[in-house]
């Protein structure tokens, strides 16, 4: 079906309101970049989900990263998205202004090269992300072990998508269908969503990121919801297999083990995080126990409600007023994949 026909079918939807959650922040960004939101029927409501790693990371994690970055002899390495996220006192970018050594990395390779060149310096990697990013850290650990590096540690806030989707399905968010994350699915496989689909009676479609791929996935979700199909469809077969990427999964499981983790606005969710295994704890930089991480949210910030789809960003009283991309109060406004920042930048 060509894109124009898919768009027409989605525009002409006249059924009862269907709330579709796009789980992944990259999908949210792509939906807005293509202007899809105002191409489809208002009865198809797209809700941004908890799949932006920066957005769900609690403020207490930022605080810990800032504390480490300010330590003498420590370099804190992070991907760019984290740098402006407010902690309870400072963001990493503000800490940099106070003398912290923060390395904006494009890849882990840079960190490993620097650590090798400066053995007296300690490097802490802010390891944030979902199953997509976890293999990157696992591979780095493999290299660190092989090279015998003693000066690289990880401050982890790694998240697993299936446990949080169980949480979303159990709450009152009223989500009727799920656009499953394309990149995460490439690792964990499309089949990983089947138990969710069956148990909660909702359709899941794994989608790609081009405009046409997203329209195709939304069209499939609309049809499956209309027909009451509670199953998984892989609409991104060029990148995603039913069983995922077993090599990547094995690598992750070698170094990491599931455990309870705190999510901004949602609190602690069992098994929703990855932690370094006991035998690799020497590489851990004091990643917070989940319970301690659940506090210290910025005043009045409703990112938690946004992440769960209970409110849209413009419904937050801070949106565009006290909270803008230049002066963000919450993480959803900071991140390139956060719903608030995306609404601010793109929504007409």
């Amino acid at each position, binding site marked *: 079906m060509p894109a124009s026909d898919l768009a027409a079918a989605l525009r002409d939807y006249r059924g009862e309101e269907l709330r579709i959650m796009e789980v992944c922040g990259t999908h949210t960004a792509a939906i807005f970049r293509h202007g899809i939101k105002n191409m489809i029927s208002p009865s198809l409501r797209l809700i941004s989900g908890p799949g932006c790693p920066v957005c769900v990371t609690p403020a207490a994690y930022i605080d810990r990263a800032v504390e480490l970055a300010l330590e003498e002899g420590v370099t804190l390495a992070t991907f760019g998205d984290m740098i402006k996220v407010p902690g309870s006192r400072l963001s990493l970018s503000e800490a940099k202004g106070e003398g912290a050594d923060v390395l904006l990395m494009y890849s882990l390779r840079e960190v490993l090269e620097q650590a090798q060149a400066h053995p007296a310096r300690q490097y802490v990697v802010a390891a944030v992300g979902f199953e997509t990013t976890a293999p990157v850290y696992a591979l780095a650990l493999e290299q660190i072990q092989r090279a015998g590096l003693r000066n690289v540690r990880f401050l982890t806030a790694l998240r697993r998508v299936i446990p949080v989707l169980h949480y979303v399905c159990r709450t009152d968010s009223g989500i009727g269908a799920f656009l499953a994350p394309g990149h995460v699915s490439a690792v964990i496989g499309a089949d990983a969503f089947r138990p969710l689909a069956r148990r909660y009676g909702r359709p899941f479609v794994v989608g790609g990121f081009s405009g046409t791929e997203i329209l195709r996935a939304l069209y499939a979700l609309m049809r499956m919801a209309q027909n009451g199909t509670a199953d998984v469809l892989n609409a991104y077969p060029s990148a995603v297999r039913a069983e995922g990427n077993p090599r990547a999964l094995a690598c992750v499981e070698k170094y990491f083990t599931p455990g309870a983790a705190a999510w901004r606005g949602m609190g602690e969710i069992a098994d929703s995080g990855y932690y370094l295994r006991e035998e690799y704890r020497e590489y851990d930089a004091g990643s917070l126990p989940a319970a301690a991480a659940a506090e210290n949210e910025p005043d009045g910030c409703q990112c938690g409600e946004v992440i769960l789809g209970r409110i849209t960003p413009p419904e937050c009283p801070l949106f*565009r007023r006290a909270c803008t*991309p230049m002066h963000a109060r919450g993480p959803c406004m900071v991140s390139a994949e956060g719903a608030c920042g995306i609404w601010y930048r793109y929504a007409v």
Partner: protein
Amino acid sequence: MKITMAHGSGGQETRELVTEVFRRRLGNEHLDRMEDAAALPRLDYPLAMTTDTFVVTPPEFPGGDIGKLAVCGTVNDLWMSGARPLYLSAGFVLREGLEIGLLERVAGSMAQAARAAGVQIVAGDTKVIENSGDDAGGIFINTAGIGCRQWALTPGAADARAGDAVILSGPLGNHHAAILSRRLGIENNIMSDCADLGPPAEALLAGGVRVRAMRDVTRGGLATVLNEMAAAAGLRIEAEESAIPVDADVERFCALLGLDPLYMANEGKFICLVADADAERALELLRAFPLGAQAARIGRTEALPAPDEKLPGAEPPVILRTALGGRRILDSLYGEGLPRIC
């Protein structure tokens, strides 16, 4: 041979560096006098002046180096304001440990770029700073330039009107992608688009096209430049995504790293607003040059709608009609253009 603190002392080493590296390559009747200031002849037109500082890493990249960039960048800024560039100054800040061979190559490419652009470098300065930690070497260049506005047209955003055509001179993102590829060790054939925009700009200025405004599309990319133009003109710009040219290899590179070509830096592209009736003529003139071969009409200006009471803040001035058929805001760049993390 490397740069030492002595090269910035003002003494014999400085003189030797200036003579051997700079004068040998950049010398001309004004620079060679070696006075405190260059004495220049009277000019018969209104003048334009600009300055820009260049800090690119790595200093040499596919398609150019920091020297070519420092000449073309300032020359282009003059052309964009409707002035023919005549004279440049060049200030160098060098970090201890810089290879003199690299400096020679950079000075050589400045000389070449200046000759091609018809400008003279008439004043210069060199300072050396201490090597702090990892950043041994390092070269930073400031150039300032003077040009004359010798045409009847003196483009500026204030002259734009609703209904003007928005024309882009060529494909986006090549410079940014080339630099980033080098930094990340990614092998590809992407070259910087670093170029003198003089010939196509002159063709427009002299070609009877009603050029309202021109801007080179550098840092912040097309999205940022369109926003700045719209704000300065007090107009809204509607751009058409499918009309914006991007080379296939740049597009693949962006997809890989999660970058958006609309926010990527260029060093040899410009946007011009021209009267709608002159748009085809402007495209014809631009397409006669290799760097304008893919010139395209990418949008039009419109009157700003009345402000919306419900939403605080100004109305967004740039709207993009997406290739898929949707509409969205095209905002300026925030922060840095960074690869995705998940």
